[in-house]
């Protein structure tokens, strides 16, 4: 067998992996979803900064509020909203597929069920809002 083996193996073409996710729309969406974690972590740190300001007193808290009111902050939060919203959308798209079967019919989470839950949550929010006003 060995005497048929070439002295040097022929060069094998390897598909380059750099930038693989740019080649397919689904992979680009996947990476966008993963990027939502950057915004989520930054937002958690903004909230933590707010709690530190709350601890340090009213002046520090007012400074945190003033920082939130800058145009840059509002613009970045608007961008963060897009990313976190996309994360939420994909999360609820994937969740029904990863869950074990429910003990009750229809055994899995349906889109109608998700929509109904969202509407009921909105109704609950409206009821609390009106009751509190």
């Amino acid at each position, binding site marked *: 067998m060995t005497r048929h083996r070439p002295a040097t193996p022929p060069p094998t073409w390897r598909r380059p992996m750099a930038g693989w996710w740019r080649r397919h729309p689904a992979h680009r969406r996947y*990476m966008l979803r993963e990027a939502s*974690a950057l915004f989520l972590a930054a*937002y958690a740190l903004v909230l933590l900064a707010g*709690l530190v300001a709350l601890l340090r007193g009213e002046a520090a808290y007012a400074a945190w*509020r003033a920082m939130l009111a800058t145009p840059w*902050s509002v613009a970045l939060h608007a961008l963060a909203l897009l990313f976190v919203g996309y994360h939420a959308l994909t999360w609820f798209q994937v969740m029904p597929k990863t869950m074990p079967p429910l003990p009750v019919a229809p055994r899995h989470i349906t889109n109608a069920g998700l929509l109904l839950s969202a509407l009921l949550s909105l109704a609950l929010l409206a009821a609390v809002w009106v009751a509190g006003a």
Partner: protein
Amino acid sequence: MRRSHAPVFWLLFGAGGMLSALVGPVLVVITGIAVPLGLLPPDALDHAHLLALARHPLGKLALLAVVALFLFHAGHRLLHSLHDLGLHTGLGARLLFYGGATAGSLATAGVLWAIGF
């Protein structure tokens, strides 16, 4: 057989993903857009209200859950995205991302404790 630590971080990732999917967008709208632009009543998110929330045990629990689980979710996701970008990470990266999330969570718990009841 040696037990894996993966389920712990996966559970924190899942909990943070669920919580951020449920309340993340609306929190960003409230604290980052609506309150700064004055779209909500002027006393929303003022010092007295947030202090009352942070002093209530359930408020503390909610604030800690949001910050800590968001951090663990993001840390886990970013750590695994490094692999997708072709970066082969080891113990150092795990310590950085999970340790960072742990440090942020402990800091939040400490601040909430120091704010008092």
